[in-house]
């Protein structure tokens, strides 16, 4: 166990954590505004990954450029899904809302299975194995770019929410639905906006992951379960929580993989999830409910 190995693992954990954070950000945005836990979040990521893969293999478009397609595409799909599938159950009992997103996830995941088969695919680019040296560690370039991309998008989203009128309207709708409606904020449109933005985030995460992660119908589930852990850890609805939680989980997973057999680390993540749920269901940074 050399310092280099440890440092590399740490760096890898941070980079992957950035991606987790982006996925979690989308999830937490949706929950923060609509109070819905979107089980189909991972499915959207998976679809974005397939779209990126398809674009790259058929038209040679570089995955990073594909962001220009998948991010707006993700937004539109999210918006559409919210209008079509989520809006009808907003007034329904919570478990029905959960079942709706669960059904959506089931549908999308198996649609992909039917269309693309279960064979995992990997995209190899000219730079898939390139590394960048930072101090004693060599960082995998695609992972580093994914991390940078995730940070950039997160910053952009944060700026949008803080600085623009639309962003503030969104936050108003999240915090106080009826009050927001009273002052003329079109709350239903805010919901669609939140879902669209959340989906765009996760689509971006998917695209950024393609250069170094395999693509398969259930890859979305892998990420979304981790995203749930992150979101619960950081607090449902909390932005900083999603960020810190994502980084924390990424690091724990990476370091855990060093010391433990791969799947034990997975179990560790689930146990962490359960522990956090029990200790503080509102997450480490979420607001305490009455």
């Amino acid at each position, binding site marked *: 166990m050399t310092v280099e190995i440890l440092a590399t693992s740490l760096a890898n954990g941070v980079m992957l954590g950035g991606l987790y954070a982006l996925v979690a950000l989308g999830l937490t945005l949706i929950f923060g505004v609509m109070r819905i836990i979107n089980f189909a979040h991972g499915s959207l990521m998976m679809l974005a990954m397939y779209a990126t893969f398809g674009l790259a293999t058929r038209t040679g478009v570089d995955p990073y450029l594909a962001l220009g397609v998948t991010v707006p595409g993700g937004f539109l799909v999210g918006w559409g899904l919210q209008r079509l599938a989520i809006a009808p159950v907003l007034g329904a009992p919570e478990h029905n809302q959960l079942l709706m997103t669960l059904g959506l996830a089931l549908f999308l995941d*198996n649609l992909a299975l*039917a269309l693309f088969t279960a064979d995992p695919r990997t995209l190899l680019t000219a730079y898939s194995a390139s590394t960048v040296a930072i101090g004693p560690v060599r960082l995998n370039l695609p992972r580093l770019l994914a991390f940078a991309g995730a940070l950039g998008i997160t910053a952009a989203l944060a700026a949008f929410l803080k600085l623009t009128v639309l962003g503030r309207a969104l936050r108003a709708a999240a915090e106080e639905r009826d009050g927001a409606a009273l002052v003329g904020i079109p709350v239903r449109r805010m919901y669609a906006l939140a879902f669209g933005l959340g989906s765009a985030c996760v689509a971006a995460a998917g695209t950024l992951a393609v250069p170094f992660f395999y693509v398969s119908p259930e890859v979305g589930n892998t990420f979304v379960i981790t995203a749930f852990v992150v979101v619960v850890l950081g607090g449902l609805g909390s932005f900083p929580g999603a960020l810190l939680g994502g980084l924390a989980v990424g690091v724990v997973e990476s370091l855990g993989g060093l010391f433990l057999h791969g799947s034990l680390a997975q179990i560790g993540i689930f146990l962490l999830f359960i522990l956090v749920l029990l200790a503080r269901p509102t997450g480490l940074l979420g607001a305490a409910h009455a």
Partner: protein
Amino acid sequence: MRELGAGAALAGALLLPLVVRSEHVVGTLTLIFFFAFVGQGWNILGGYAGQFSFGHALFFGIGAYTSALAFIKGGISPWLGMVAGAVLAALVGLLTGHLSFRYGLRGAYFALVMLAFAEIFRVAVTNWEWVGASFGLLVPLRGHAPALFQFADKRAYYYVILGMLLALTAGVARLERSRLGYEMAAVRENEAAAAALGINPYRVKLVAMALSAAVTALGGTFYVQYFSYVDPTIAFGPAHSVEILLRPILGGAGTLWGPLLGSALLGLLGEATRGLVRAHAGLHLMLYGLILMVAVVFLPRGVIGLLHRRP
């Protein structure tokens, strides 16, 4: 009138394998009864007590693996293994229930926590050689051995699951009218109000969980004896958790006949789309997803909810 109809249906069910020679029809009905059984197991906690679990495959898997392992490793009859599995599942249910309910988890949080527990078992079993790891467990075939829960004639399994289902239905019918049944309904409808009336929500939910877990585990044993095989994904996987809850949700959660109704509908649908489904893997799950989405919007209280329309 209703008694007459029920009697006729029962007679029909009992006589069917003797009259209809098609193994396929008997097999389809066997599965319909099976899913109605485990669905009713889920229903006890999810429908009657109102605690939706997205990880009931946990108990199913415990039942399946316990009886299979007891037989494979120890030569113990799966009939006994079945009981052991149910007891073990109830204990695990008490543990997970205690953690969840003591700490006030409900709604989405509870659903997720159960999913997490199921996933932990799935991953653990997948990596544990002694229980077959990812290869799963093959039940050694002994031909016709009723004492070992194996029958040469598949129709025997039909009668076993039918018997189990009838017994369970009678049990749940009594539960509905019992003190515990009313306490469960109160906790489901409004937990705070129930507490204000002297009902201990934690205890009620815990008992419901133990019962639900035990029943689901019994179904797990039946499954592994019927198919002679189980693996971690079949037993503990999220897809299986969904299969378990889909029937009662579709038929009507919290009702006595919801699970059977939902199972029959889904079974019929499966038959109708059989040719289509066989061509593509995953198509039937896709259909389930669609059905779930449609049901949630148009049948928020299941098909039975349609019949007792609420303004």
